[in-house]
């Protein structure tokens, strides 16, 4: 196990045996180690707010596909069907669905025409941190079901060349379906493991929306409160670190990597970035430009690289979104 992680876990275990932590964990149905970590990052009052926010289901949000339709027109068309929508402050093409109309949100004729994608607001912010440009070669290393892949092509008006990799054959079907439904064509979907499958080197940008414990999606899936252990966390950290190392090998000098994870765990965010910064002097952190709170730089008495403050976090109790970690990295080789 990564030595820093082992040190952190010792302290997590000690904190998790604190009766106050155990009481809080029991009251909200979490494993104690999870609450112990929230207390470390947010303090007692912040933890209470987070646990309360996680009890409230997310209001559905959609991302308008302005490659195909004017978003005002989409709003009108859905409102004619009885939907009540409200524009999000950020990201610009997002709408909160306050009331549902006729039919399910994933079954309207507008949906079938590819005019929108159902996606959490934090999730639809990540592609903006990547700032994809037309003409670029972009690799999405963990692509299904395609929220961010479709958005990368949307932001470039189907003018980038996207290589979208997914290793799960069941999840690859919706990825293809969404790319086609939203009428993009400048993509290659690769069925394979991003760690091993041949991928083009010299990419302008790489997105790694990493597989995670899903600690950030408790509002959608409350089973995540208790379904993972510290050893799962250690395993997933290792996978994320290895995937990010491959991302570094794929990007050209001067290129950008965005690393994200739908998790609140510093082990899946800041600690992955810290490890990479320690081992890769060619990698630096850049501002991501999103309305997120700063990354954590001190965790259970471990001082992390200061630059990690420029990474970002979306919190359910602050942003009313899923929990997300995001970090924009630049690779410069001599």
């Amino acid at each position, binding site marked *: 196990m990564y030595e820093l992680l082992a040190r952190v876990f010792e302290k997590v275990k000690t904190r998790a045996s604190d009766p106050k932590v155990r009481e809080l964990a029991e009251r909200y149905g979490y494993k104690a180690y999870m609450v112990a970590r929230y207390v470390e990052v947010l303090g007692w009052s912040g933890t209470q707010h987070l646990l309360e926010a996680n009890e409230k289901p997310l209001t559905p949000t959609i991302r308008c596909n302005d490659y195909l339709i004017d978003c005002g027109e989409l709003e009108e068309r859905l409102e004619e069907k009885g939907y009540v929508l409200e524009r999000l402050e950020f990201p610009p093409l997002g709408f909160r669905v306050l009331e549902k109309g006729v039919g399910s949100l*994933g*079954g309207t*004729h507008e*949906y*079938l*025409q590819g005019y929108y994608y159902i996606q959490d607001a934090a999730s639809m912010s990540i592609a903006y941190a990547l700032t994809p440009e037309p*003409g*670029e*070669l972009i690799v999405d290393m963990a692509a299904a079901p395609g929220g961010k892949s479709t958005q990368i092509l949307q932001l470039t008006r189907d*003018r980038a*060349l996207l*290589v979208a990799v997914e290793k799960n*054959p*069941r999840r*690859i*079907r*919706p*990825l*293809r*379906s*969404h*790319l*086609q*439904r939203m*009428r993009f*064509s*400048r*993509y*290659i*979907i*690769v*069925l*394979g493991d991003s760690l091993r*499958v*041949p*991928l*083009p080197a010299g990419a302008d940008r790489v997105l790694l929306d990493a597989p995670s414990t899903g600690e950030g999606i408790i509002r959608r899936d409350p089973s995540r409160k208790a379904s993972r252990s510290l050893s799962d966390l250690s395993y997933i950290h290792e996978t994320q670190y290895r995937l990010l190392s491959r991302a570094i090998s794929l990007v050209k000098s001067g290129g950008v990597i965005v690393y994200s994870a739908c998790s609140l765990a510093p082990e899946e965010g800041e600690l992955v970035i810290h490890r990479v910064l320690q081992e890769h002097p060619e990698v630096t952190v850049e501002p991501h430009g999103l309305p997120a709170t700063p990354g954590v730089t001190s965790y259970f008495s471990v001082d992390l690289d200061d630059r990690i403050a420029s990474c970002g976090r979306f919190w359910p109790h602050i942003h009313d979104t899923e929990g997300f970690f995001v970090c924009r990295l630049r690779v410069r080789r001599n």
Partner: protein
Amino acid sequence: MGEQDIGNVIIALGARGGDYVEVYAPPSRELLKVAVKIGVDNIYSMGLYVGMMAPGIWFKPSLPLAHKLAPLCKSKAKCVEVDEAGERFFLYGRSVLSERVSGWKPGLVLVLNTRGEALGWGRGTITNIGGVKRRLLEPVWDLGWYLRRGG
């Protein structure tokens, strides 16, 4: 990366575990070059999905192709337009009576709604219903597929 259209290149990818072939048109030479580097065996889908070929079906045109060709309905393509109720039936994968179809014609047609949006591919048929010959529009591949089968 160039923005060249290469139009005339067609790639056929064998479906894993199936006996059909999917036909794609890569939109640029660059995309094709990258695909070669990745290796065709690793590729699941790429570029504009044109349609599929399978035993018993010579060629089934795809949904993305319907959208690509819809602008040609005014001039060259063989298209029909369904009314609102017809649109609902069609997207449920059901046949539509010709009363709801403007410009009904036999054979393979591109199906539009009253806004001119493509809904997929249909086939004009004449069927005997209760002793009466009726003209129908039968779905070949409709957008409702994204919901029913898209994954």
